[in-house]
């Protein structure tokens, strides 16, 4: 074998080994979390997922409050962020290029701010604001508290103190907005100009064109964007940890304090040992499985549209 061939085959093998690291890492995430949580699964079985007890003294652990909290904050974040991201993307694709570029970059910078700063801002600025102005306004001035079903969903028996699912959801919404908006912008740009022009040609308004043509054309890409946002919101730790209130309760109302999987992990892991540590690993595994599933969907839908969006992949 002559020298260049030897270096070449070594080079190729080295690159392949590095690339395979990524698959290996992902597999070992699952294996390691599963091995470390096996004690908890043996002790509680699948009931772990539905039990809402969390009593380190008695050695009883359940994942339900954390899972429900994670789902609730994510749902709030999506409900707030999706419409905003959709219409911002709509505006930014149609705006004059100069303005559009500056504003897009400003929104992209939102994604660059470290999450711990979102958390701090939430703790010292947003939470007091919610407590003193927004929540009293909604419950007392508008008197939504007295509305039969809605009131109960909004304010639980603990009242409100600025912390909780609602505040955490709002911060998450702000954090995922730039990601979702960036993907939606790409999707809108990929619609062929001919399609939009024909829509305008038969007399559609801008909104009808967006809703009936652009959205239908790029629905898979939009779904991918939704799932990317969902995955981000699901696993975010610091921003949520600061404002969620960290109480191991199943959510009963939007203004209640509670916890999420990531917040529970961050709060308890350092002091935990034995069965509690195992239970925390089990929570981590639940989070990993949820996030993994969502990412797979996201990548699947984005992949379907990748060639149309002009991405090389």
């Amino acid at each position: 074998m002559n020298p260049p061939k030897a270096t070449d085959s070594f080079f190729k093998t080295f690159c392949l080994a590095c690339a395979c690291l990524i698959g290996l890492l992902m597999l070992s995430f699952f294996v390691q979390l599963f091995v470390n949580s096996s004690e908890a699964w043996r002790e509680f079985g699948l009931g772990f997922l539905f039990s809402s007890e969390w009593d380190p003294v008695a050695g009883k652990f359940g994942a339900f409050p954390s899972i429900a909290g994670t789902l609730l904050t994510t749902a709030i974040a999506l409900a707030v962020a999706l419409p905003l991201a959709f219409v911002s993307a709509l505006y930014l694709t149609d705006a004059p290029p100069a303005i559009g570029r500056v504003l897009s970059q400003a929104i992209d910078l939102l994604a660059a701010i470290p999450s711990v700063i979102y958390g701090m801002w939430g703790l010292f600025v947003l939470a007091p604001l919610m407590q003193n102005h927004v929540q009293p306004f909604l419950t007392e001035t508008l008197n939504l508290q007295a509305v039969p079903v809605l009131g109960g969903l909004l304010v639980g028996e603990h009242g409100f103190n600025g912390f909780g699912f609602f505040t955490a959801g709002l911060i998450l919404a702000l954090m995922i907005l730039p990601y979702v908006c960036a993907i939606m912008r790409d999707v809108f740009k990929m619609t062929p100009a001919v399609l939009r022009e024909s829509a305008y040609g038969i007399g559609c308004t801008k909104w009808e064109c967006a809703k009936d043509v652009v959205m239908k054309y790029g629905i898979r890409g939009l779904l991918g964007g939704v799932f990317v946002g969902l995955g981000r919101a699901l696993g975010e730790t610091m921003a949520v940890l600061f404002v969620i209130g960290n109480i191991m309760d199943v959510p009963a109302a939007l203004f209640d304090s509670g916890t999420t999987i990531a917040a529970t992990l961050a709060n308890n892991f350092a002091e935990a040992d034995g069965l509690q540590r195992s239970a925390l690993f089990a929570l981590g595994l639940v989070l990993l499985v949820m996030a993994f599933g969502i990412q797979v969907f996201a990548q699947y839908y984005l992949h379907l549209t990748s060639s149309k969006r002009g991405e090389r992949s």
Partner: protein
Amino acid sequence: MNTIPLNTVRRRPLFFRKTADFGVRVFSVFAVTLAVAAMAWILFTVVSRGVPAIDWGFLSNPSKPYGVPDSGIANALLGTLFITLCAAALAVPLAVAAGIYLSEFGRKSKLGAMLRFSANVMMGLPSIIVGLFVYTILVVTTGHFSGFAGAVALAIIMFPLIMRTTEDMLAMVPDALRESGLALGMSRARTTLCIVCRAAKNGLLTGILLSLARVSGETAPLLFTAMFADAWPDRFFSEPTANMPVLITEYATNSPFEEMHTAGWGAALVIMLAVLAVNIFTRIAFRERARER
């Protein structure tokens, strides 16, 4: 395409259609304003609350427990620098090589597609999971928290980011360059490293810098790996190492004192300025140059 009988088409009065359109336009301007205003609000809060904390002593003294005078953030700054650079040293060569595989050898292969998919998925996994993972493989086995464990955690987060940008950047290099290199009798390895990578140098640098900026603010993976200490980071490999994100977390949540909060805002200001500076710098510097070419 199936045609719709004309008489089933719902008639919508022009007034309602125009009102709906106008409403959406107003809402979209509102949404963009809201997003930009939120960013400005966060920046403003951090700057206005952080500036009073910052003076020379704050930047040059190590952190101390509450009540001890002359407390600062110098050890955390240095610790974050160590951890981030160590993470980069671990991740960059391996991740660039992995990106080279995807772009040069695995462009059409099944394995390449699978690995690309894994990298994409991995970019979206929660960072706290990485913290748990490194905790079990490095902290439990060696028996102590260390800055190095934190660096490994950050390296794992950087890996897929750099891998995917490397691939994207290399894929933009025209094949003619590769062919001319090979035609001169260069080996594949040499062509890739000396010609393809050099042609894509700016893109690679952008990707690396942006991923550095991204991980230098990551907190969750450091909570269980680097932890925190009120000491200079001189025992990087064997003891908890001070770092900025965990310092901010500690000062903001575990302390009732106003002074600690101010110090936390100061630290937040420093890290935010650094991250934003890298972001804006790479956007401007490399975008301008890309247009010249």
